[in-house]
């Protein structure tokens, strides 16, 4: 893959912060190799100088030497493993830390098209791939190469003929391993794909349980699952096949080395060119030849995966932050609440047609603004531009007369309270969820916000009140309850400018009533400027200004009664609700 090598090198550079660990691990590994190579020499010494001439003291010496080598090697092995892991965990920490900080700052624009699962994979699996290669992989690769080279040199120095015979058996091992690595890679890829499909069918049959039963789809689901299951089995059998037709033969060729060494070596002993001890030592070295080859083969498979992962990691890390403070950005002074849009045009990245086509309006401090329009008219876009979640394509957005691009993001956003379209709760207590924007808030403040958001009464009924754990792992809340917690969250920051996207709440009538009461309270509060996207007639009726949007333009502006009389679109949008009233009135 082009660029993958570069990405791996860039990942390796992260080891720079862990020079000591990397260096220590590498040195230890090299010393381990030396110790490994020394052991058979001691064996040879024991046989040739001890056992054959019946010299007991030399046998003792050799045994002592072996034990000493074992101890040293053990210690060094431990050191290399430990240090390499320290380095690799450090690299993972740095990568993840950098990635997380980066994704926290990426703009909404990025997230509009990004997939959560994909981002998560980069931060978990991909980082893990890079980690395991960069830490231990690099060290092992270096050490294996050194070991391989050392063993070959040593073998040749003992006996060149025998060395050639032994090396001859290594060639087919390389060939078998290469064949295995190239065939198993795509096989595993396909296997993963099949597994994912199988899991989708399973998940759908569980989630769509009632649909399956109601439409008598059981047999077809079984057939669908069966087909993929058969595919999976066949692919698994292929993997079994690949494994079983390769690994036994790697062993076979390795053993062939023994045959070659004993056979050729035996003949050499006949001619007095080799001692028995040398022969046995030589045989032991064969294992040292095989080990680094296997390691290199394994790492070769890993390196391509690590390369692909590193590329994905760095691609994310290099995604430019579209929105950041200008060099001369100043903090926004305490907010009054005036909002102006000056001929604002906005187009989403990758989209041809603009979603806002020249929007102009001015809102005075304390006013309540209702935004109304069909889906895609640009309501959400307008409210997303005020806290500068996106930058305008042309024109400008001014808050208290300051262009939002000239003030710091944090000073701007900390003075705006927002209730987003789908209220997201985090795993944690009710309290920490409400205090999300002000983690230091006291319980009294949290309670006050909950009261204002009409959430206090249901929170008090929860098993542990404000300390009840909610979110994914905790107590489930209804849509309306979540919505009210989100409102409390926005209120706690005591913003001068409040933005509410209330367009998709799915709640029953009584909850709706409670939310409405919370909203009414907010909107009558004249100390705050409020922008509300709403479908409810009661919300719009109380607004100071209603902006009716169609196709990215403001087509009507005014109060409820005025628009009722003048704007056909206004009447159409509120259609069903107006009809509802008529039924009631009749």
């Amino acid at each position: 893959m082009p660029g993958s090598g570069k990405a791996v090198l860039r990942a390796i550079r992260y080891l720079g912060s862990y020079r000591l660990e990397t260096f220590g691990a590498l040195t230890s590994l090299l010393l381990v190799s030396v110790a490994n190579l020394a052991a058979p020499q001691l064996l040879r010494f024991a046989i040739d100088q001890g056992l054959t001439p019946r010299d007991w003291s030399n046998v003792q010496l050799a045994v002592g030497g072996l034990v000493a080598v074992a101890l040293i090697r053990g210690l060094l092995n431990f050191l290399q493993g430990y240090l390499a892991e320290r380095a690799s965990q450090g690299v993972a920490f740095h990568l993840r830390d950098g990635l997380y900080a980066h994704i926290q700052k990426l703009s909404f624009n990025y997230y509009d098209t990004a997939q959560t699962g994909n981002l998560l994979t980069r931060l978990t699996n991909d980082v893990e791939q890079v980690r395991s290669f960069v830490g231990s992989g690099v060290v092992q690769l270096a050490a294996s190469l050194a070991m391989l080279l050392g063993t070959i040199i040593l073998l040749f120095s003992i006996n060149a003929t025998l060395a050639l015979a032994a090396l001859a058996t290594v060639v087919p091992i390389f060939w078998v391993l290469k064949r295995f690595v190239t065939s198993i890679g795509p096989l595993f890829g396909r296997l993963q794909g099949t597994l994912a499909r199988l899991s989708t069918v399973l998940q759908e049959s569980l989630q769509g349980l009632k649909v399956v039963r109601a439409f008598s789809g059981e047999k077809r689901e079984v057939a669908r699952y069966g087909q993929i299951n058969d595919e999976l089995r066949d692919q698994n059998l292929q993997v079994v096949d690949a494994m079983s037709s390769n690994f036994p033969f790697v062993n076979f060729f390795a053993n062939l080395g023994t045959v070659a060494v004993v056979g050729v070596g035996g003949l050499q002993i006949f001619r007095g060119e080799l001692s028995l001890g040398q022969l046995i030592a030589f045989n032991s070295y064969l294992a040292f030849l095989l080990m680094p080859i296997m390691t290199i083969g394994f790492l070769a498979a890993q390196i391509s995966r690590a390369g692909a992962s590193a590329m994905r990691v760095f691609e994310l890390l290099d995604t430019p932050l579209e929105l950041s403070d200008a060099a001369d950005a100043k903090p926004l002074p305490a907010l009054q609440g005036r909002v102006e849009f000056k001929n604002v045009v906005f187009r989403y990245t990758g989209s041809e047609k603009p979603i806002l086509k020249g929007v102009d309006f001015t809102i005075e401090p304390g006013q309540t603004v209702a935004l109304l329009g069909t889906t895609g008219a640009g309501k959400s876009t307008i409210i997303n531009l005020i806290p500068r979640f996106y930058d305008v394509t042309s024109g400008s957005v001014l808050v208290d007369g300051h262009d939002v691009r000239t003030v710091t993001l944090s000073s701007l956003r900390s003075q705006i309270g927002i209730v987003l379209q789908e209220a997201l709760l985090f795993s944690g207590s009710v309290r920490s969820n409400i205090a999300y924007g002000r983690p230091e808030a006291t319980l009294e403040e949290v309670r006050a916000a909950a009261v204002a958001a009409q959430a206090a009464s249901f929170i008090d009924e929860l098993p542990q009140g404000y300390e009840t754990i909610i979110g994914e792992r905790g107590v489930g809340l209804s849509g309306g309850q979540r919505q009210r917690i989100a409102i409390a969250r926005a209120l706690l920051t005591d913003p001068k400018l409040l933005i509410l996207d209330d367009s998709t709440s799915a709640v029953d009538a009584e909850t709706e009533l409670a939310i409405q009461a919370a909203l009414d309270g907010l909107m009558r509060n004249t100390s705050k400027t409020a922008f509300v996207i709403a479908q409810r007639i009661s919300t719009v009726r109380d607004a100071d200004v209603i902006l009716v949007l169609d196709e990215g333009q403001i087509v009507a502006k005014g109060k409820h009664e005025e628009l009722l009389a003048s704007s056909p679109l206004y009447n159409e949008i509120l259609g069903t609700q107006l009809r509802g009233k008529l039924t009631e009135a009749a």
Partner: protein
Amino acid sequence: MRRPGSIEAMAETTVQRAADRAGVARRLLREIAPFKKPVWTAMIFVVISAAGQSLAPWLVGHAIDRNIGSRDTSGLALSMGLLLAVYAASATAQRMQSRLIGGTGQRILASMRARLFRHLQLLPISYFDKRPIGDLMSRLQSDVDTLNQLFAQGLTQLLGQLLALVGIIIAMLWLNWQLALVCFTIIPVMLATTSFFAARARAAYRKTRETTGDVSADLQEGIVGIREAQAFNRTEVNIARFRERNAANRDANVSATGITSAFSPAIDMLSTLANALVIGFGGWLVFNERLSIGVLAAFLLYVQQFFRPVQLAASVYTLAQSALAGAERLFAILDAPVEPDDARDSTMLERVEGRISFEQVSFSYDPARPVLKEISFEVAAGQVVALVGRTGAGKTTIANLVPRFYDATSGTIRLDGHDVTKVSRASLRAHMAMVPQEPFLFTGSLADNIAYGYPDAPREKIEAAAKAVGLHDFISGLPKGYDTVLNEGGGSLSQGQRQLMAFARAVLMKPSVLILDEATANIDTRTESLIQKALSTLLAQRTAVVIAHRLSTITNADLILVIEGGQIIERGTHDALLAAGGRYAELYRKQFREGPKDAA
């Protein structure tokens, strides 16, 4: 992929124990029964490869002592030829056995997966009520996966290695029993070392798993909650918190490594010590003329082959424990009773007009807490009955009883006068269609989704159904039209379009009875009016049981049942109930409270 036998593999397998290990093991063995032939054939190969592995070092020793010692060139050639043959035979046998056993394992797993899935399709819906989908999924996936590991990696290798170990032990004892016994003292030391490290590594890895869980939870929230984070200016706090958890994870990993990276050096040390032992004690025996150098060399080879099987056995043991626990859970699914078969004298419903009656129907999951109490009502064919009430009042349960997703605890439900428990489920459901509150779409094309209940439907009928609900224009405007493939969950369609898809699916069935759980989500006005139009098509000419949230369905219903606490507290038409000024009138006013105000 962790190598079986590595300390990481041992540490990462969470130790679980099956309650009835012997029973589960017997049952797993029964799973193997249909594969008797390949398994026994594999056993033969296992024996061959084990014999080969124990024979080879002996041949090497023989060559050194007899052939090299006596300078017998042709003898050496013969020995080497034999050695080659033994290695070749053993490699081939290994290949055959791992292929046979691995293949058998995969076939058993595939058959178990298929049976599990089929069983899930037959289980009563009540089985799923208390089991979160996530749990079931992970059971079916990770438990099967653990079994897979046991079959694919553990057993294939372990069987061969253990037999080889037996062969090696016999060969060693035969060659020189004194030296053999001394060598065997290493085995318990090795087992003790392994279990010492494995226990500590497991504890360390538990900590690692926890911190990894924290990191992923934080990541997930950091990504999913990015809009909140930026809106509430939380990014710096989040980054700091993540850094903390990330560091904790790093530290846990590093300290776990402290243990795991001590393991293989320790084993390695033992192996070198074993060498030293062979040379030391063996050398002493050689000095006393009780051992030849060739045998000593053979022993050196044997000792090296000790370690792998012993380590592997320790790791497979842990794996087997977890696999048995997993298998026990899988068997528990397979043993869960399926929906009772249709009654033996059940009839097929041929034609249905759609008259529904509930006669004193009660229902409860748990006798102490009845969900429905003696519900009675009757709907004439073609009428619409709307169920109104709070969440949890029992509306959904009533709707679920009609297609027999559950059976009533007492009382009788009749369709056209037939007791629904006396007709076959398939024929009952064939006359009904259901639209759930959250429309569910499958991966596949739009056409497949509409035709879910009628897979052989010709394209014209599918298009007609889409036309009937006002979806045809949208679909034919797509580049691939009806063949447009939906991604998971139908995410590319809007909420309103998904709703219409579910309608089209129901329309295609031409059901006599429709069960409709209305969606509550606010949908923009244009889609809303499409849905209203589609609804009136859907409800025309058929009996409908509607869990109602919408004004229009309620006002037009032939019968409104107000459900509270599992009972019908009010019944009648919209006008009658409104006039009565009871609970319905109250609910209605709350929902549309601006009405009176406006009228005033």
